[in-house]
């Protein structure tokens, strides 16, 4: 005969700090960082990206000349000691303008991706959680946006709004948010099935609380991977749009625009178009390296 002992059920209402609750995730994070350090691809990417970020931040100190400085008497000079990348059609030092240009392109990329994540994630999370009509509606909306290639949609939006840098940024934001909405929605739907959500609900947590404290932190990793890759993509698209004629007004130090300028004198002075393109390539490459390495590291099957 079994003894019915004292059933000890003192529910300890010790308030756990956010760190304690998410200790396993933090361990995962540490492991991820460890793996990242091992991958030469990621390290190379980090170096490149750090280079460009440094360029952008310290531009005023490292650029030999200002972005507006022109040496009108020395247009289209080939690369030399004085002008490492040569000068353009109006006598601007290409080397300096590339450094100054990094501020512009990186800022645009960060702004666009950050906004896209913000808008997209929130909408996607709500959509996944609420389901039903809102979800259907949002999915149809994202379908429409995703029916266009990024560049082309951005083109149309920017054309409608007017051709300047701010509108370019807005246009890009409009183009990029649907991806995150879908991504986060997918994550939320997967997490919704997990038991801890039911548990939280049973304890009486509000939907908002569940979303923000539990679901979103678990969805972070794929968003980070996507964001890194998108930063590269935005740089490419923004440069492409500037090349066509959007965004920066004439004379502004923007990489895409510089290439457009260099196009007319491509055969005589190839350096005008060549170096800004390299800048775009390397900055985008750095981001793609990180994103790619990150994706490999986060692949659950390749870990351990």
């Amino acid at each position, binding site marked *: 005969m079994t003894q019915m002992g004292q059933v000890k059920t003192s529910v300890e209402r010790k308030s756990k700090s956010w760190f304690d609750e998410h200790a396993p995730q933090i361990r995962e994070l540490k492991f991820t960082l460890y793996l990242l350090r091992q991958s030469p*691809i990621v390290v190379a990417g980090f170096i490149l990206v750090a280079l460009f970020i440094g360029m952008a931040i310290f531009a005023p100190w490292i650029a030999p000349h200002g972005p507006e400085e022109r040496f009108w008497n020395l247009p289209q000079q080939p690369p030399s000691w004085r002008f490492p990348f040569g000068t353009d059609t109006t006598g601007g030092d290409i080397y300096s303008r590339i450094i100054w240009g990094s501020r512009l392109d990186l800022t645009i990329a960060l702004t666009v991706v950050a906004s896209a994540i913000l808008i997209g994630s929130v909408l996607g999370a709500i959509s996944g959680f609420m389901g039903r009509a809102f979800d259907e509606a949002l999915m149809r909306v994202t379908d429409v946006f995703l029916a266009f290639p990024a560049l082309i949609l951005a*083109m149309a939006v920017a054309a409608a709004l007017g051709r300047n840098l701010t509108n370019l940024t807005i246009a890009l934001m409009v183009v990029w948010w649907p991806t995150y909405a879908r991504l986060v929605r997918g994550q939320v739907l997967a997490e919704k099935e997990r038991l801890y959500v039911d548990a939280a609900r049973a304890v009486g947590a509000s939907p908002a609380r569940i979303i923000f404290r539990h679901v979103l932190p678990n969805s972070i990793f794929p968003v980070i991977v996507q964001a890194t890759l998108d930063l590269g993509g935005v740089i490419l698209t923004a440069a492409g749009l500037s090349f066509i004629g959007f965004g920066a007004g004439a004379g502004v130090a923007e990489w895409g625009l510089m290439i457009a300028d260099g196009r007319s004198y*491509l055969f005589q002075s190839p350096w005008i178009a060549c170096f800004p393109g390299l800048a775009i390539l390397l900055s985008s490459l750095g981001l*793609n390296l990180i994103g790619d390495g990150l994706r490999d590291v986060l692949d659950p099957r390749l870990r351990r």
Partner: protein
Amino acid sequence: MKLRHYVIRRLFLLIPVLIGVSMLTFTLSHVIGDPIAAYITSQDLRLSDLQMQKIVTAHHLNDPLYSQYYYYVMDLLRGDWGISRTDSDRPVLVSIQNYFPATAELALVSMFFALIVGIPIGIISAVRKDKPADHATRVFSLVGVSTPVFWLALILQYVFYYQFKVHNLPNLPASGRVNQFLWLDHPLHVITGIYSIDSLITGNFSIFFDVLVHLILPAFALSYVFMAVFVRMMRSSMLEVMRQDYITLARSKGLSERVVIYRHALRNAMIPTVTVAGLAFGGLLAGAVLTETVFSWPGVGRWSTSAIVRDDIASIMGFMLIIAIVYMLANLIVDLLYAWIDPRIRLG
């Protein structure tokens, strides 16, 4: 038959998206942009108030939005997509008709090239994982995805046109689809608008080779990025498949590794790759815009960039619509291919 149901379902799903797309273009052209701009031809330099009134009433531009939208959609369905200022005031649809084949030719050639080169490279990269061949392809892939296509186009022009010419090497042309002088001597009877096909059909071989030569540089530039994406996808998809249990069974049957890879693994690996290829096709279209501009290729991409400089909203929106339709069709084809390759979908 399940396949038929599948196709019909997919077609039905397109309708709401098309409606949404038309709403988007409507919003952009009529709500955000200046609606009158769509109906101004290049001759109308300054419009009198009376002329403007005429346009407003003729196109119902003072009506409430939903009414405007109704007329807008009616116009679209009737074939009135506006006037293209950029293209000598031709109707937008006519411009599209004129320019689209060139873009189609460029896009298709680029795609085939990317597939023919990309698939084997992807397979080799997966089979020789972590060996030098694999690392090389990964680098190639990542660089490819990071390269601005318009810049690559310029570099190609510089090297293969200018430098070759300067050094007295046979050079590749840097612009246009065909040599105009050659055309005068051997005029091409245009049927589809895709010159390579038309010249083959009509036996006009001098034009055929000339067209191919003109395609080389732009197609290479355009396909480079697409190839990079494709190779990665193929590689990861193959890796995934090679890990599967049925591969072990195939090996246990004594099949050679070659048969295991090409008969058992490849078909399964193509399934997700095909899907991604469809999505990446959008990138190809976007790249076409930039490539056509650089190579002065007379396609819808170049038309659209010229339109932008002129603030020709009608052309831009027409361009948007046709691109959306083409992209949707491409993805539809991909879905059908997907169903055809995977018997689980075909037979339910």
